[in-house]
């Protein structure tokens, strides 16, 4: 069976499910952010696959480029929050962080 749109979408679906699982289960906040990165990457695969097989243009590439830029911003802010959390609580594990202010 020659590789087509469905194969790429399946890879995207697997990555998305893995990312959702990581976001729901991991206790370490950094690992949780890795799950978010997996989800964003799966969306990007779908964008580019549809762009090649259905749209046959460049629109999907542009959307994926914007998603990459926003993912970089998300990672910067998220990891800064993790560092602030570590400074205030001494840990990066989600179940120990249960106050909004000291």
């Amino acid at each position, binding site marked *: 069976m*020659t590789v*087509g*749109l*469905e194969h790429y*979408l*399946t*890879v995207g*679906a*697997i*990555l*998305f*499910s*893995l*990312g*959702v*699982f*990581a976001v*729901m*289960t*991991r*206790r*370490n906040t*950094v*690992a949780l*952010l*890795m*799950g978010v*990165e997996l989800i964003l*990457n799966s969306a*990007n*695969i779908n964008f*580019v696959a549809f*762009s*090649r*097989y259905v749209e*046959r243009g*460049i629109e999907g*590439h*542009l959307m*994926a*480029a*914007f998603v*990459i*830029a*926003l*993912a970089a*911003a998300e990672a*910067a*802010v998220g*990891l*800064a*929050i*993790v*560092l602030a959390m*570590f*400074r205030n609580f*001494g*840990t*990066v*594990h989600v179940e120990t962080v249960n106050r909004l202010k000291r």
Partner: protein
Amino acid sequence: MSGDLVFYGFALLTVLAGFFVVFSRNIVHAGFSLLFTLFGVAGLFALLGADFLAVTQVIVYIGGVLVLILFVVMMTRIPRGYLPRRGFDHMVPAGALAIVLFALLYKVVTGTGWAVREPGPAHPTISEIGARLMTTHIFPFEFVSLVLLVAMIGAAILIREREAPAGEEPAAGGGPAAPDEEVRS
């Protein structure tokens, strides 16, 4: 066909490394597995004819986000003697939900009659992406640059040293200690 083999290689790399990212109990191992996942996704982009995106994926994700993640892993070392429960919460419901989600997505992917047109040979996309970013997509482009600026400033403010508020923790660095964390974005 050799192109199919390349696809299966990259897909296998992406998915296997993704499993390691999710299931590895060691956060450093998970970070390095994420490297292979992102590299596999870059390979898939290249196979799909998205040359610009493949290079951007390597530069931004592997060169930027991953280095940032590993920096934070190093800086948030858990103090000795304190052993939090590592690993996972709610394994069973989360696993069930993830499997159901994947089954649903797979059914949609395979059951829908996509209006697939046979793709032609891949062209270089960089010049067209540049032209589009400066003409039809100028507003999202500027908006994303604004978002990046705000994220940079926000990250710098978030990790700034706290300036000893009102008697609490009086010996916390002694006033205007220069923030030694490096902001990367």
